[in-house]
């Protein structure tokens, strides 16, 4: 790496909490073939990924199963050595400075536990406070805040093995936040949780971000998580970035449709030829009709103007595109997106 590039990298790393450059990770998969020979196949779990995350930002990192999300997170946290490329987290080299980095970040692997199975949460937190070398009594206030905000009080003295999934995940989140990390990385935190538990967790995370300015990197399959907690989306597929931007931009890019639902004052003939729209459904008497349109091709105002000429609109509502549908369309689009 030349001097000029090295300096530029360091400069951008000062305000970026995560800086990933051409990051790749290749795995060798061996499968038995024939009696003695084994066939080797290399898989690019992460392929030339480049993105940077500003301090205080919240990114939803999404992709189908096997897209490379967890692999990326393991490289960002220093658990996995990259095959090539570079990653700088909190200004540190994650693999070489793994322990120093671990003091500044909190990680929740949704499917793994950092709690001790045979001990109550309270004991786990005591050990974690010592692991993070949190001074004397200051961590106790933080623990009590987390116990209060995550509503752990009723089971904080119960061995972890006896907790329900929702209780355990809340306990995990508190464990990751006990040392007040500047960056919180959540790998599928809401997996398996019921609607109410998910909602409470989201409220808590939003509150923590507002209070402490914690940066948040979130992988999830739950689009509500993305909508509620993040302002930027990075989508990966087969290890490559296929989208980086905000949610409206993604909706626009895949051409997802909005639907206008119109209630008329009197029976109206089917609206089959409104410019820029498609008639989805018309009730037999024509009192309620649904038109879909692609934002960018026309606007809700223009559609309403041409519809008003056909009959008196009594009420209308607009259904936004379902984000899961948007992401599905994105996965299906074959051409990798390059900025």
């Amino acid at each position, binding site marked *: 790496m030349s001097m000029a590039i090295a300096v530029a990298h360091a400069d951008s790393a000062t305000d970026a909490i995560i800086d990933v450059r051409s990051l790749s990770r290749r*795995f060798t998969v061996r499968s038995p073939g024939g009696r003695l020979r084994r066939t080797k196949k290399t898989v690019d779990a992460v392929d030339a990924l480049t993105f940077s995350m500003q301090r205080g930002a919240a990114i939803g990192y999404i992709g189908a199963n096997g897209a490379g999300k*967890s692999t990326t997170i*393991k490289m960002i*946290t*220093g*658990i*996995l*050595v990259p095959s090539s490329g570079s990653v700088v987290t909190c200004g540190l080299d994650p693999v070489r400075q*793994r*322990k*120093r980095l*671990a*003091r500044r970040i909190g*990680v929740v*692997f*949704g*499917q*793994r*536990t*950092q709690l*001790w199975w*045979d*001990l109550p949460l309270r*004991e786990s937190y*005591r*050990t974690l*406070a*010592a*692991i*993070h*070398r949190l*001074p*004397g009594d200051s961590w106790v206030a933080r623990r009590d805040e987390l116990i209060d905000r995550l509503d752990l009080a009723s089971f904080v003295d119960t*061995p972890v093995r006896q907790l329900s999934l929702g209780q355990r995940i809340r306990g995990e989140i508190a464990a990751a936040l006990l040392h007040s990390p500047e960056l919180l990385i959540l*790998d*599928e935190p809401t997996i398996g949780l019921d609607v109410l538990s998910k909602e409470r967790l989201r409220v808590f995370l939003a509150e923590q971000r507002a209070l402490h300015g914690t940066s948040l990197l979130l992988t999830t399959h739950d689009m509500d998580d993305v909508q509620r907690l993040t302002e930027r989306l990075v989508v990966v597929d087969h290890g490559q970035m296929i989208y980086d931007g905000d949610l409206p931009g993604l909706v626009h890019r895949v051409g997802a449709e909005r639907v206008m639902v119109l209630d008329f004052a009197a029976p109206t003939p089917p609206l089959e030829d409104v410019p820029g729209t498609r008639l989805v459904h018309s009730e037999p008497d024509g009192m309620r009709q649904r038109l879909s349109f692609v934002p960018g091709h026309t606007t809700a105002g223009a559609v309403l103007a041409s519809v008003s000429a056909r009959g008196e609109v009594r009420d209308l509502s607009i259904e936004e595109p379902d984000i899961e549908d948007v992401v599905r369309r994105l996965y299906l689009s074959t051409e990798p997106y390059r900025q």
Partner: protein
Amino acid sequence: MSHATSFIALFCAHVAMGFRRWSTYRLATAAGAFTNSVFGLIKAYITIGAIGAAGGSLAGYDAATGATYAWLVQALIAPVNIFGWQELALRIRSGDVAVDLARPVDPQLAYLAADLGRAAYSFIPRGAPPLLVGAAVTGLTLPTSPLPYVLGAISVWLAVMLSFACQWLVNLAAFWLLDLRGVRTLYMAVSSVLSGMMVPVHWFPGWLSTVAAWTPGPSLIQAPIDVVTARADGVDALAIMGTQAVWLVAMLAVGQLVFLAGTRKLVVQGG
């Protein structure tokens, strides 16, 4: 808080955590103590029989000291953890080791401290019953001065840590192998002989003594028993403990290097 005090706090927290984790399994502890005591009876009488067949004395052991040796072995099985553990191997295989790596603490240090807590817990409830049964059934021949017990206590802790360091390496094989049963069985077979768990190392034929002397085996069981029974005292006792310490440092260092090599090739898939 200074670096040193926070380090001590970290170490002690892991010791305490290890102690509490193991103290939750009371029934298993009782069952283990019962088993150790029953096998102690069998081993004590086999040892007494062997010494009798050899004419009343064998490599410095008479019936009373031979039986004492057998009972002390039974008392040390749990604290020294001679049958091993596989928690780390299972965590490597499942990928949970990622959690250990995401912590600002050296995993070997954290596991060692927790293992000291485990040993501290097992010391009385697993060590006392075989000794009490031994005292009641065959009698125990133990030193009457305090020094062997002081040195013996240090020697036992060295053995606990050395056993941990050896098992750490066995567990690390999981980075390269999917199934550890072969490695564990081999380790257990070899270590239970070379440590002196079956019969005292002093009874070994010459070639086996030589082999044993080049392994950490005798430092696990034979060494602490020689020190605590004052079979070796003074300079001899210190020499034995020095050997234990050298093996301990060497095995921990190898464990560090192998762990580092393992994490370099670690593939944690899924989740």
